[in-house]
């Protein structure tokens, strides 16, 4: 899952980036509104975290321009202003949630996960398809309640596939959502990751959780569980 972070305060930006990466999220962090607008309209994000007091282009203006251009990914506002009038203004400009500084990182992660789940039609805090369950808060993946050990990229890949369970997802889309902007991308690596995921999730080849659609991409083929 790829997250855009627009925050002008260097330390906070670095801290948030680090925390998000620890939670296996793909993060692009920028320092001002103009860059935010460029990145936000250039790359396919799953969630954007936007500080309201930004240089060049204010947070409110940035959100308004993104929404005007038709980008509908969830946006979380970070703000030092806790007055309701400011919150309402931020939410009316097109954001989906707000978090007042100072905040707990756990709270931030929980809000981001909730926003991304909500955007892809999930209502529970854990993502379950068939026997496979992924808990974004703990970053644990289980199959029939047994822990499955995954590498960071395998986890990212599965997270994205689960979020969009039932949809066909191209290799490019997968690359876009699990790699940061400045990382080397090699779409062939995706094939390797998928292969490894299959062998870890379905060692005896009975479940076939990830279907390959030749020339189009992949699809997670297990029914979404809601409990």
């Amino acid at each position, binding site marked *: 899952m790829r997250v855009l972070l627009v925050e002008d305060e260097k330390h906070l930006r670095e801290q948030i980036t680090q925390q998000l990466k620890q939670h296996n999220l793909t993060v692009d962090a920028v320092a001002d509104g103009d860059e935010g607008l460029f990145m936000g309209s250039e790359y396919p994000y799953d969630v954007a975290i936007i500080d309201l007091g930004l240089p060049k282009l204010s947070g409110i203006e940035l959100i308004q321009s993104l929404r005007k251009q038709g980008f509908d990914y969830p946006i979380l506002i970070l703000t030092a202003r806790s007055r309701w*009038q400011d919150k309402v203004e931020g939410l009316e400009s097109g954001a989906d949630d707000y978090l007042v500084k100072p905040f707990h990182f756990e709270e931030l992660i929980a809000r981001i996960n909730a926003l991304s789940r909500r955007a892809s039609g999930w209502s529970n805090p854990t993502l379950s398809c068939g026997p496979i369950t992924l808990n974004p808060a703990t970053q644990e993946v289980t199959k029939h309640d047994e822990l499955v050990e995954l590498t960071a990229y395998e986890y990212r890949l599965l997270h994205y596939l689960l979020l969009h369970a039932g949809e066909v997802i191209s290799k490019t889309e997968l690359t876009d959502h699990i790699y940061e902007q400045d990382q080397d991308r090699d779409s062939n690596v995706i094939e390797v990751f998928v292969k490894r995921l299959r062998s870890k999730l379905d060692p005896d080849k009975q479940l076939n959780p990830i279907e390959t659609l030749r020339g189009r991409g992949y699809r997670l083929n297990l029914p979404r569980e809601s409990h």
Partner: protein
Amino acid sequence: MVVVTGLTCPVKVINFSLSNRVLVAVSLVLTAFLGLSAISLNNAFKSSAELEQKKRLKNYVYTLLTAAEINDKGELKMTHDLAEPKFSIPNSGLYAQITSSGKIVWQSPSAIGHFLSLPFQPGPSNEHYTVVDVDGGMKLQNLAFGIVWETETGKELDYTINVAEDMSTIKETTASFQRSLWYWLGGTGLMLLLAQWLILKWSLRPLHDVAKDLHAIETGEHHRLNDEYPRELKQLTNNINALLDHEQSRRQRYKNSLADLAHSLKTPLSVFRGELANNHDLQSLKSMGYEQLDRISTLVDYQLQRASTEGKSSLLAPVSLGEIIHKIIGSLDKVYKNKAIRHQCEIERDAYIHADEGDMYELLGNLLENAYKYCKHQVHVIATSSGNMVKIRVEDDGAGIPTRAESYIIKRGHRIDTQAEGQGIGLAIVSDIIMAYEGNIHLERGRLGGASFIVELPRI
């Protein structure tokens, strides 16, 4: 002086004081009025003097006629002494002459030495007024009067009587009238201006008093303007007083919040300091640190909120509660989308209140967020107004009063730092704002089964 910059060149506008404006305007009007009166009075006097002179001339004619007689030879003779002595005194300025068929028949003694060529023969019973110039630059107002005298023998004799008066006499009277006219009018004008100036000073005195009063407030001599001002100024001074009171209560609130903040920050700080000195377990030190940081952050939020509360003031424009409630509900619906909450709003159209918009956002935002947070699926908002009060009721279907009352008992003057740790500050802020607006809040069991907060606020 105010300088207004125009499009092409700067235009200077002199900023007259009120009394100067009135004085200038009144002086102009007064001067114009007095000047016009002087001109018309002068004209009236002049024409009446001329009319008077004409009448006089005619009377002289009759006097002459009374004194004249025709003797046996058919010649005209003046028998009696003329009643007007001026006819007898040479150069008296009043002259008379009687002519018949172009020949002078009689001349008044005053006219001796003057050659009065008065060739007017208007014909019988006709009068003819003219101004004639005679030698020596004299100007005379002349009346030529034609008569026909019938003698006893039945013979008709034509005569023309000319009576002329020196015009310089009338000029002198007019001039002396003009002089006194100007003295009187000028005097009256000056008196009026002086009176005007005094009246102005007297009527504008309250304005000077207000200025002095305000200055006394600036220097800290008093806190408010006094109440004894004329009706016209009362609205203004009352508003200034309201503003001053509002400022004062706000300043007091700032001071209190600052003092409370400093005071309440000391507890978590000293707890943390103590832990740093005595606790050697990094893990528990960390969690203690987080806990105290949270507490500090909450205190800062709360006191900031308290300090920024505007509070009651009659000078604030009315804000619509319905509009604010709808905006907040729109925002909360977004944030609590997962909960799929059904909300119902019943808001009277005239549910408005003279209050700071930010305060109302804060009050309603915290109340509604509380309801959204604790409800199961339903939130109900009702805003009604009756008389000078607006009533807002926020109900939810969450856990009822017993479970929530403990943490949300709202008391006057209840301070956040005296509350147990870990509580939200939302309702404490609500209670503070209600206090600042002199309203009240209470909690009861609602029709939806959960809590029902009832807030009552005065409109002004």
